[in-house]
């Protein structure tokens, strides 16, 4: 096959020209994506953008109508792949009447892990997540007896128990309290440290911004932004933004400088501190020089980094926010 030539060992996941249609609409339109091995990749976008479809296609749970997908260097339909993948679906659920140990043992066995190994791994992970201590072992409780947060952690353990090379998490942080969310984040970072690839979808921009090496933003079945987070930010060509905090009494002295339309585009005034968006063509250096010349007392002068949220708003527009995007989380 022609696309076999495109195989690249650097990538854990490659989608090339993938289109998926449902009876009533086109879920994905000609998307291409490459995810490097050993990285954390964020799949961002509003609800219904096509994130879950992208994930399900990558896991061979569905077939694309057009295009092809390679996972860990193999065709996505290669049966032996499943044991090397871990998947946490957005819609969570386990066998509620089974005990934790039997559920996890089952999930491990269908990933090709032998029972004794599975039992050892279950103990390790349960200890790590604080569910197995000297006075209690929740492995013997049924899922029904556990809180929702605990059930989510069990499901997360089931996803990574067999030590997969590629872990795909669909909205892993939704429904988790901050403490549990932190333990999941720690595990994700640890997986990356051990050379695994983690792909997760989220609508929480700040989590993606803090954790991901690379991101793709999906909107209405198309990829609107894709690449290394650092590159995305450096290539972002919007006007620079600066936050300036004044010494007390220097605000009036600064007013003249800030009123110069050739230098300053927009000012967000917080009394002793202002967020300045520079006019096009102006540089932060020029602004600093002018303020110093005007003898303005400056307590802090920070270059504001463009947030992913900002970039997303620029690319997708406010409609994305309306449909469930969030810059916080």
């Amino acid at each position, binding site marked *: 096959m022609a696309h076999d030539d495109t195989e690249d060992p650097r990538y854990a996941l490659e989608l090339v020209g993938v289109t998926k249609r449902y009876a009533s609409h086109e879920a994905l339109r000609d998307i291409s994506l490459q995810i490097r091995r050993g990285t954390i990749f964020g799949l961002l976008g509003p609800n219904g953008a096509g994130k879950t479809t992208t994930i*399900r296609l990558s896991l061979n749970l*569905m077939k694309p109508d057009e295009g092809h997908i390679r996972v860990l260097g193999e065709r996505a339909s290669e049966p032996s792949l499943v*044991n090397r*993948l871990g998947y946490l*679906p957005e819609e969570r659920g*386990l*066998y509620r*009447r089974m005990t934790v140990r039997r559920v996890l043992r089952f999930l491990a066995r*269908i990933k090709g892990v032998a029972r004794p190994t599975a039992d050892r791994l279950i103990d390790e992970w349960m200890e790590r997540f604080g569910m197995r201590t000297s006075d209690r072992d929740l492995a013997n409780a049924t899922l029904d007896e556990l809180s929702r947060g605990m059930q989510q952690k069990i499901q997360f353990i089931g996803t990574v128990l067999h030590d997969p090379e590629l872990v795909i998490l669909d909205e892993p942080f939704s429904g988790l309290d901050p403490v549990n969310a932190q333990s999941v984040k720690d595990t994700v970072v640890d997986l990356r440290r051990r050379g695994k690839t983690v792909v997760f979808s989220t609508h929480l921009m700040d989590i993606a911004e803090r954790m991901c090496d690379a991101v793709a933003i999906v909107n209405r079945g198309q990829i609107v932004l894709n690449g290394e987070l650092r590159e995305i930010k450096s290539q972002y060509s919007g006007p620079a933004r600066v936050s300036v905090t004044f010494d007390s009494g220097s605000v009036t002295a600064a007013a003249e400088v800030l009123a110069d339309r050739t230098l300053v585009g927009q000012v967000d005034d917080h009394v002793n501190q202002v967020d300045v968006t520079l006019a096009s063509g102006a540089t932060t250096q020029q602004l600093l020089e002018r303020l110093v010349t005007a003898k303005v007392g400056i307590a802090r002068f920070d270059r504001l980094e463009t947030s992913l949220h900002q970039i997303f708003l620029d690319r997708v527009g406010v409609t994305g926010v309306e449909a469930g995007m969030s810059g916080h989380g």
Partner: protein
Amino acid sequence: MDKLMAVIGREFGERVRSKWFVLTTLFGPLLLAGLLLLPPWIAARTNASIDPSSLVFIDQTGTGLGNAVAVDVGGGVRATATPPLVLVATREQIDSVVALQRASLMSGAIAGYLILDTVTTAGGTARLVLRDGVPGAFTERLEASLARQLQRARLISLGVTDENADQLARLTVAVQTVRLGGDGGEASTRVNLIFGFGVAILLYIAIVLYGQIVLRSVTEEKQSRVSEVVLASVPARILLAGKIIGIGGVALLQLGLWTAAVVTILANRAAIFAKLGVQAVSVPLPPISGESIVLLVAYFLLGYALYAALFAIVGSIATSEQEAQQAQTPVIMLLVSSMALLQTAIGNPNGSIAQWLSLIPFSSPIMMPLRMGLINVSTSDLVVSIGVLGLTAVLALLMAGQVYRTALLMYGKRPSLREIARWMREVD
């Protein structure tokens, strides 16, 4: 293979461990034991409430009829019982003897008295006076004994020797119908009818019961969203196969235990009744050849597989438990229609309706075992029937596997028939 075993192990292990399984497995034999043992036991207990030794026979015939009947009734079936007391009275004494016994009966000293007089010898009627109700079985026994003794007396009066009269009077008749099997073995047709009917009903119940378990299992997996996790590790057809095999294993285990319990009870029926102080005869178990057992198991397994596949399709396309209950109606109708025609098939097991029904795969798992119990089905009929059933089951399983993969991941809406047809055509 490991994955299939893991799925089978989960389905089988979880179910066998469940309270539901333990309860129904124990409750089944208890219910059957109750059905098999209680009615005769209760009947026997009711009979025993009339103890022959607590009766008094007043004999005014002057022929010794009272003594003869007393020995007959007291000895007869229940050899341990003491025969009733016999009071021989003349025509003059009779009224006072009866009055005396009446008083004894009122005071509860005796359970009843029987008057045998010239009316009895002439017309065969006798009067039994009791305090409590009339147990039918006892009166029947008394009547039979009276008839026998009167007949004997008449034979003697006609000049037949005592010994010959005894023999003639004891003559009883019964028609036993016997069916000659293909292998030359004989079997009672009545037992065969009960057996064939029993097996058909049992197969029907088992297919509905375990088919429903497959349906619920699929719906539950879809509702709880577990299926998505599992499908990411196991191909849909392996998941489906594991589920059907695992639940089928539970079915075989449970049916096996139930059958063993029934056979044990029936084989030891007489001994069990003896322990309970009730005399009863053993019911002969129909002779079943090894081939018949293999065929019956094959019909159950194939019938179960066919219906389980259909139930799995219904379960995977339904979006809720309630919807699944409604959507299964067509499948249930297929099964019920064979049951509705069961009577017709029993009436004429070689008729064209019965023949067709034992070839159509949706009814053959119930009809063919029934016919096998009633008549000798030709080998060619069996081969065609099993072949058609097997093929249909495989086809249904393949279709179910195709639908399963797509339908399990559709949560929001129920797919249209056209969509389902499209999934069936999709290739891996």
